[in-house]
């Protein structure tokens, strides 16, 4: 074990974000109940500074620090960027929500930044222990955020997430313990060395059990079948801005660590886990899509649709080539934009103390608030994977990689699923444009300049990525070239 002061430079972006979180906490402590908008601007500033620091890591060669625990490469830098985008967009969309609820405290921002630090560390962890700590840092902040507004639903959501999340962490930790017992190390590099001495994985059933348990822990975090049951309740009960945050940030960070660990450390077991993930991917997307068909509540529908998206992303895990990794990276960043954008619109359509998320509440909104309707249309198109949106390119890249590796049936099932999903995404549009508004739907909205900015950023990003994806694809390719 060898630690250098210079290792700290790898942590510079993380330290900036942590420092911002602490600063926000102090602002709140010394000016309780007054500092929310200050906290918003401060957090965004901190994230932008961190983004500036991360930019420098893109071209640089991969380097490790803290005795090989932390790795800074293009892949980690990419996911750090995803984390900043998630953070900034969430801050922007929650502005109108907190404004209408007259909630003026800053702890939310501090918790969110802490959670982002966890996400950033997850994508850069080269060691299962660091990964686990990062996962807990991320999750514990989110448990608190889900119950942040102290409503009945929010508390229920927070508690469900906490209890089930605790159980899944236990699974994962047990898996890590088994891997440690069989490999004698929990560093990814060390595990690769150990596995390379084994003729086949059947020589080490304990390691296989450990891999399975770690996979189960990840499947919980990404809401994959059969570990998805918590998702609809938790997503629906939490404040919508928190839902947006956990649907995107947690999923991206969990996939980041999931992909790195499985592709780097467990290639020997790929025969075992690709077939398992094949089944999981098909089950997850089918389950998510068919359950979403039946939903009358837009927030719940988006929760099920996020399960389906996890299924598409799992196709990338099955393929497990750097090409699939590129697809996953692209898919995740477009998923972040379209999902937070959609949740942002859901927030705006509510009013103080009332969320208004049933389909009936959307009737006629397309004519009453044309811009809002247009934005939601683009998000729904992107989620359904209709060109020329980013969602289409993401799906295309993932399916293409699967076909290249010979998983033709998997790609076919993925396409069929996407086609089925069009029904429920477009139903929202049907309500918006082809139904008479029965009540006050769309008359009163809560909005703020920052939230409109968030929607605008998301729309532009989705269209730009959909029409001219080349630049981002290149970055993603560079980030996953090492796998």
């Amino acid at each position, binding site marked *: 074990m060898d*630690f250098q*002061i210079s*290792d700290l430079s790898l942590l510079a972006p993380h330290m900036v974000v*942590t420092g911002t979180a*602490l600063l926000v*906490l*102090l602002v*709140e*402590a010394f000016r309780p109940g007054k500092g929310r908008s200050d906290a918003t601007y401060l957090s965004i500033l901190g994230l932008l500074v961190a983004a500036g620091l991360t930019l420098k890591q893109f071209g640089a060669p991969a380097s490790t620090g803290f005795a090989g625990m932390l790795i800074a490469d293009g892949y980690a830098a990419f996911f750090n960027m995803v984390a900043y985008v998630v953070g900034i967009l969430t801050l922007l969309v929650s502005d109108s929500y907190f404004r209408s609820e007259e909630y003026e405290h800053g702890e939310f921002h501090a918790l969110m930044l802490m959670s982002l630090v966890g996400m950033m560390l997850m994508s850069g962890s080269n060691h299962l222990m660091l990964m686990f700590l990062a996962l807990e840092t991320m999750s514990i902040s989110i448990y608190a955020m889900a119950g942040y507004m102290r409503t009945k639903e929010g508390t229920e959501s927070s508690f469900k997430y906490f209890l089930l999340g605790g159980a899944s962490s236990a699974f994962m930790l047990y898996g890590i313990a088994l891997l440690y017992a069989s490999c004698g190390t929990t560093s990814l590099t060390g595990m690769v060395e150990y596995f390379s001495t084994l003729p086949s994985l059947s020589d080490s059933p304990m390691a296989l059990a450990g891999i399975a348990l770690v996979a189960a822990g990840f499947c919980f975090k990404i809401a994959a079948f059969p570990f998805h049951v918590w998702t609809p309740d938790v997503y629906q009960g939490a404040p919508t801005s928190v839902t947006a945050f956990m649907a995107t940030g947690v999923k991206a960070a969990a996939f980041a660590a999931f992909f790195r660990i499985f592709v780097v450390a467990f290639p020997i077991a790929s025969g075992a886990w690709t077939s398992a993930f094949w089944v999981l991917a098909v089950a997850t997307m089918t389950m998510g899509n068919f359950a979403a068909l039946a939903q009358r509540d837009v927030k719940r529908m988006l929760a099920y649709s996020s399960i389906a998206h996890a299924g598409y992303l799992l196709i990338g895990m099955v393929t497990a080539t750097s090409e699939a990794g590129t697809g996953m990276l692209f898919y995740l960043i477009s998923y972040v934009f379209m999902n937070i954008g959609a949740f942002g619109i859901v927030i705006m359509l509510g009013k103080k103390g009332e969320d208004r998320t049933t389909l009936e509440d959307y009737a006629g909104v397309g004519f009453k608030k044309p811009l809002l309707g247009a934005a939601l249309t683009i998000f729904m198109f992107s989620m359904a994977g209709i060109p020329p949106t980013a969602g289409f390119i993401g799906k295309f890249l993932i399916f293409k990689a699967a076909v290249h590796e010979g998983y033709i049936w998997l790609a076919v099932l993925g396409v069929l699923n996407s086609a089925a999903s069009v029904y429920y995404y477009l139903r929202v549009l049907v309500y918006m444009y082809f139904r008479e508004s029965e009540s006050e739907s769309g008359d009163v909205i809560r909005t703020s300049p920052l939230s409109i900015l968030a929607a605008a950023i998301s729309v532009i990003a989705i269209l730009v990525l959909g029409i001219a994806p080349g630049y981002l694809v290149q970055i993603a390719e560079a980030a996953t070239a090492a796998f």
Partner: protein
Amino acid sequence: MVENFVPVLILFLLAAAFGLGTVAISSLLGPKRPTKVKQETYECGMVVDPPAYRPFHVKYYLIAMAFVVFDVEVVFLYPWAVKFKQLGLFGLVEMLVFIFILLVGYAYIWKKGVLEWE
């Protein structure tokens, strides 16, 4: 290493034996005349009301949570302190960062009034 703890076990057992022994002797020597009144809950001779198990103030929970944070911090500091002289400058910087983060949390709970008792 393990044999170092044999005396620990022996002393534990002996102390427990002495403790239980004195209680045993006392219950042999002492009178045993329980009455209903004698076995009632002590309340200065008055009728006991209300029952003992009532919720206590939420402050105690907050204090207990703050304690856990600090206690875990100290647990981390102990191995660090033993090896501090071998760790070089890195050890100092890391720990100062650690203590600093904790101090921010401390300032936060102080300002938020967790430590006030009225």
